[in-house]
């Protein structure tokens, strides 16, 4: 059936709310407004205000309340409008959600799911456009998911709700309107492994989330140039599926990492480091990266586009890697 990424997310929410009485959705404008990105549109009418719970603008308060409700036996889904706003709740996410199990010597699980929008490309300026999922992937105790496809938008939520530990799901704002085919019986998906989205033998393009479409486009263009590129979708940024990443690059011996986060101290840096640590003698070229320019994302369209990864930059980086001599 035809579905948008947004509709796939909504189907996942509806399914979880129908299947488990302990599940509820809480966040800013998730109810009467229908969700700031219309993901939860219609759910208030279907499930009522106790389970589709509009909150005040209190990110730390309602994220912390989600943690408390999870401790109390519920299965809360907390929506934060954008990743930039999640910084107001960073205390709760880091000092409580990620730390309680360890601090309590294994006594207190926090089965909380937090969804938030991430990423740029919509001329929203520096306070609505950043890609901070790599930051969150720095934190032990969290599981970090980045659904890039309709199947993952539909299916990651239920699996995340079964996890006894906190899971953060990052939805790239440019994906909500993506349309495609989704199986009628689409359901829960695995949340531990990376996935090969396009097979190839000459080079591995490693990406996740909002940059998957442009990376697939780059792979198509590279095919026209006679370069057979594999595209690997990380899906889970923490814990990283290191085995799949290493196996892919071991096959192709070349890699480009595409990440909308800033280059310095990023998830792309982590992947490069692991490839260097473990595949140094098997690589035919230095691992290349395509990341965002190290600026707060600007408003004007030409500057924003210049700051972000593009298919052109991925193609150029891949040519550089394939042209290099090992």
């Amino acid at each position, binding site marked *: 059936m035809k579905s948008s990424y947004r509709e796939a997310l909504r189907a996942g929410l509806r399914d979880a709310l129908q299947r488990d009485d302990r599940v509820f959705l809480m966040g800013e404008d998730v109810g009467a407004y229908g969700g700031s990105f219309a993901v939860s549109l219609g759910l208030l009418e279907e499930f009522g205000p106790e389970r589709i719970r509009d909150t005040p603008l209190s990110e730390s308060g*309602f994220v912390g309340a989600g943690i*408390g409700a999870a401790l*109390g*036996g519920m299965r809360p889904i907390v929506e934060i409008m954008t990743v930039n706003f999640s910084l107001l709740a960073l205390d709760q996410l880091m000092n*409580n959600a990620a730390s309680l199990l360890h601090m309590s*010597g294994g*006594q207190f699980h*926090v089965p909380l799911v937090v969804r938030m929008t991430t990423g740029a490309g919509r001329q929203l300026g520096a306070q609505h456009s950043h890609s901070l999922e790599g930051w969150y992937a720095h934190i*032990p105790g969290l599981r970090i998911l980045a659904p890039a496809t309709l199947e993952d938008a539909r299916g990651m939520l239920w699996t995340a709700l079964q996890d*006894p530990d906190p899971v953060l799901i990052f939805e790239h704002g440019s994906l909500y309107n993506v349309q495609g085919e989704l199986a009628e019986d689409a359901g829960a998906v695995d949340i531990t492994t990376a996935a090969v989205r396009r097979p190839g033998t000459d080079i591995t393009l490693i990406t996740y989330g909002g940059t998957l479409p442009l990376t697939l486009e780059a792979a198509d263009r590279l095919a026209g140039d006679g370069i057979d590129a594999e595209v690997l979708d990380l899906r889970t940024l923490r814990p990283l599926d290191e085995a799949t990443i290493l196996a892919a690059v071991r096959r192709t011996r070349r890699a480009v990492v595409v990440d909308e986060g800033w280059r310095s101290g990023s998830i792309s840096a982590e992947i490069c480091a692991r490839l260097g640590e473990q595949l140094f003698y098997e690589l035919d070229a230095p691992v290349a990266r395509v990341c965002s320019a190290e600026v707060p994302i600007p408003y004007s369209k030409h500057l924003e586009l210049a700051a972000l990864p593009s298919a052109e930059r991925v193609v150029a980086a891949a040519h550089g890697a394939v042209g290099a001599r090992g």
Partner: protein
Amino acid sequence: MSGPDAVDLLRQMLRVRRLEEKCVELYSAAKIRGFLHVYIGEEAVAAGVLSALGPEEAVVATYREHGHALLRGVSAGAILAEMYGNVEGCCRGRGGSMHLFDAATRFYGGNAIVAGGLPLAVGLALADKLAGRPRVTACFFGEGAVAEGEFHESMNLAALWQLPVLFCCENNLYAMGTALGRSESQTDIALKAAGYEMAAWAVDGMDVLAVEDTARRAVDAVRAGGGPHFLELRTYRFRAHSMFDPERYRDKAEVARWQERDPITLLRTSLAGSGDLSDADWEQLQADADAEIAAGVAFAEAGAPEPVADLERFVYSEAGASGSSGAAGSRP
């Protein structure tokens, strides 16, 4: 309040006092490390409020929480072993003095981020309300927390959603070294709470009978569906903020004035005067408390550190953990 109950409150305060005195001694002997914050002077608050709670209730506390843990039912041995960093500790030595947790008694910390426990309490209460369980979450925090945004966010959420939370502000007048009047434009904390359309009462936090009586009425009201209630418990910390505090910010005369209202001495004198506590009774209370703490020390001394091979456990739940109760198989 009849005689025996008052004697029991005296007993509870004395247990906390003896535990804390022992903690200071053990810290000086380098048996306990890290930060250590003791509750000496403030015992009437925890003793009064916790005696008004049932076992089904939840408690969220601060980093000055040894006494709350003890009175909630965590053994002195498990508390001291935790501070020794031993695996027999209530958190296997992973929490330490500031992070005591215990699922069996629904003791949710041990929160060392000021005001960070308030949103948790709101969420625990939300879970109870959604599940239709008539029970209360008691949340302790200092007056320093009142300056934090999380305090205001939590007060608003609890009042807006009429959640069963008992907020207990332990106003000991100093946020570390910053006096209340130097940090708040409005120093009447109960008045602030009332601004959130919440019943808020200020109580003499050195009078354990007053604390117990007020807490009981508040707990009854919260449990009956009356929404969140707020207690401002006016108390004083007799000792330094932590073991590293030279106390430059307050003078000794002020401390001495407050020590004249030592909650243990006040109640002991009152009970002796009314004939409800003989000298022999008092000696027995002290001997019992000393014996309990001595047994706790012996338990901690006999403990062992967790093997380093286990370092990375409890970052993610281990196979088989469902998290279904949110409390590792204990009461939901």
